[in-house]
């Protein structure tokens, strides 16, 4: 068989993404139809920049969701004769049940670049948003009291946050994300500390809201604690009770993945802390906070149910930017070979793999590089659109 032309490569890749196009069309049709009822998200439909950003972000989200349908080959399979093959090369061995081409070529171990890129999106979108959410939980839980109470607590927490921020990120990664450190159990201690914050956050959230309605409060707090501690035992210590009861844990995390995850959360939290603290210091001078204080509302109720909702605009914008930044960090980790595993198809590791032969074979590195760039660009544009729209009201 002949090599494909550039046009037919793009055409075939386009066709391969059919579930994504379908999902995008449905999502946008529904969103535009009901945009008046969708709040800030609906308003986004009126901003060109935001719409474009959302389109890119959703493209990658759907790609990650439907990755199994999109890939043309197993991302780890090595086919003979396709080492560093040019984009559009046909398979040499005529196995009938395989897709007949390597659309974006083969990498240095004769794996399909296209399928690895698609699978990589799943790796990135599994870790980056989750790590950002955790960082937000930590940052919010610590930033609210620091900004609201001030004083010694604020001084101490701010010093610690500045300490972490003053650390060069790459040095920190080199110290924290190594196989040796997994042996010492330090990532587990980190996880033990960092993963408590979501539980604290939700317990305090429900407790302060339903303090006057004990039955409801008890129910919600009990559910939070049960679910939270169950997930906590599985994720932080790999000791999900179900592992011992029925043999297969619901919540568990590979030690290397946990290490990467914890380091990324750790690096991101102080930034969130600073933003939340600044917002709280600004908002606590407003009249409605003073009114709440006069009514005798508890400090945590004021912080979580009066200040936090009013700080949501900047926080949502920062959330989008921070997912992009986390994606860049994960790529950096992969680039230095500190990622999840050397076989992993995540974009940073693939760029790192590809750069060794960069001056001869471009495609193994350029394809994931463009993918990563487009996702981060989409998130930044989305953040810009959200900022513009949220400033309008």
């Amino acid at each position, binding site marked *: 068989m002949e090599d494909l032309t550039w046009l037919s490569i793009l055409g075939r890749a386009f066709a391969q993404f059919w579930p994504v196009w379908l999902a995008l069309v449905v999502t946008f049709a529904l969103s535009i139809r009901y945009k008046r009822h969708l709040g800030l998200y609906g308003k986004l439909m009126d901003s060109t920049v935001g719409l474009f950003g959302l389109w890119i972000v959703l493209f990658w989200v759907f790609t990650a969701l439907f990755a199994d349908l999109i890939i043309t080959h197993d991302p780890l399979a090595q086919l003979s004769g396709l080492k560093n093959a040019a984009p559009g090369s046909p398979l040499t061995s005529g196995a009938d049940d395989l897709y007949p081409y390597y659309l974006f070529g083969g990498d240095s171990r004769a794996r399909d670049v296209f399928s690895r890129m698609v699978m990589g999106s799943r790796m990135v979108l599994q870790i980056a948003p989750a790590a950002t959410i955790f960082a937000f939980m930590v940052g919010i839980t610590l930033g609210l009291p620091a900004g609201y109470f001030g004083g010694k607590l604020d001084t101490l927490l701010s010093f610690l946050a500045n300490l972490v921020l003053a650390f060069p990120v790459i*040095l920190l990664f080199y110290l924290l994300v190594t196989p*040796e450190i997994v042996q010492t159990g330090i990532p587990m201690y980190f996880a033990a500390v960092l993963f408590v914050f979501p539980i604290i956050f939700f317990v305090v959230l429900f407790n302060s809201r339903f303090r006057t309605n004990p039955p409801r409060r008890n129910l919600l707090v009990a559910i939070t604690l049960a679910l939270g501690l169950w997930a906590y035992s599985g994720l932080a210590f790999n000791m999900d009770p179900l592992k011992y009861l029925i043999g297969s844990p619901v919540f568990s995390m590979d030690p290397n993945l946990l290490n990467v995850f914890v380091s990324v959360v750790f690096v991101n939290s102080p930034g969130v802390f600073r933003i939340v603290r600044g917002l709280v210091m600004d908002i606590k001078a407003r009249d409605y906070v003073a009114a709440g204080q006069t009514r005798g509302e508890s400090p945590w109720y004021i912080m979580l149910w009066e200040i936090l909702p009013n700080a949501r605009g900047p926080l949502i914008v920062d959330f989008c930017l921070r997912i992009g930044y986390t994606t860049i960090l994960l790529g950096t980790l992969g680039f230095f070979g500190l990622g999840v595993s050397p076989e992993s198809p995540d974009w940073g590791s693939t760029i790192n793999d590809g750069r060794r032969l960069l001056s001869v074979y471009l495609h193994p590195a350029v394809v994931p*590089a463009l993918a990563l760039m487009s996702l981060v660009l989409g998130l930044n*544009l989305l953040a810009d659109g959200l900022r513009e729209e949220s400033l309008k009201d």
Partner: protein
Amino acid sequence: MLAFILRRLGVMILTAIALTFIVFYLTNLPPNLEKLAKSEGSVRMADDAVASWLENNGFSEPVVSRYGQWLGLLPGWTREVDGEIRGRCIGNGLTAETAPRFCGILQGEWGWSTVFKKPVAEILGRSLVHTGWLMLWVMIVMVPASLLLGVLAGMREGSRTDRVLSTFAIATTATPEYVSGVIFIALFASATAGLSPILANWGLIEGKTLFQGTATSAMDNITFWNFGLPVITIALYGIGYIARMTRASMTEVMTQQYIRTARLKGVRFRDVVLKHALRNALIAPFTVIMLQFPWLLNGVVIVETLFNYKGFGWTLVQAAGNNDINMLLACSVVAVLVVLVTQLISDIGYVFLNPRIRLA
């Protein structure tokens, strides 16, 4: 002002001590020491041999006291092994009698690099010189370019120029160095793709590629062709960020009353921008540029690895990858100092530039 600077210095020293201790602790974890013993002694060492090697080389003391020795606040360890006296400060021609009691970084003793087989100070000095050149050129490219972009975008908010430049700025902040570096190499420094084969076909360039894909030769002789790509790769990521800050600051200044007054008075738009707006609009970007240094450090590490330029970042990666404890500690001291000093300068500079801020 003096009290402010002194307080900042105090916090800075405290931060530096805390950070170096964390690095010291993490590099001296038992698995790392075991690896060090095996690489310095022999690979096949049994567990008790490792333990005695660590014992004989002073690694068995508590971490805090070894940190004090490394810092130079505590006297270096000495120990008698097989009839000869060994110690932290002994060696390099110094005997037990002539060696000083203290030898830490406060005395200028950075130790011995196990990877490069040379004194750490020598390697560090050389790599910092290389990185200094890189940073200098990055600054020369980045600062004027980003300020120009920001001012042009911000002087007429919402115009087409503003839209185009802002999109460009967002695009550059979305492109980390390892992505832009790869794309630049693909476009300009590959013999098989991008611009180089076309130019070579037309006979416009002599070699195979337009730019060089590695900056190794730039360590002896910097030319545009071997240094252009690393510099632009680092600069690009910063340009977007600084340009956006400059734009925000510029748009704010342009809505001020005195600008409107000047316009109504009939001053030309060019003069309003250059004489009235520019100076006030550049206060905020100054702090941003100073705070950009720590970010540049990240970029430097990535770019030096990608382009194989043996500067500070490359040294850090080598030290970290090969468990070179002394080298890694020295690198972290430099990195932490860079971060803290730039923070201090940016704070002080902000106060000087903005007369509305008065500190007791």
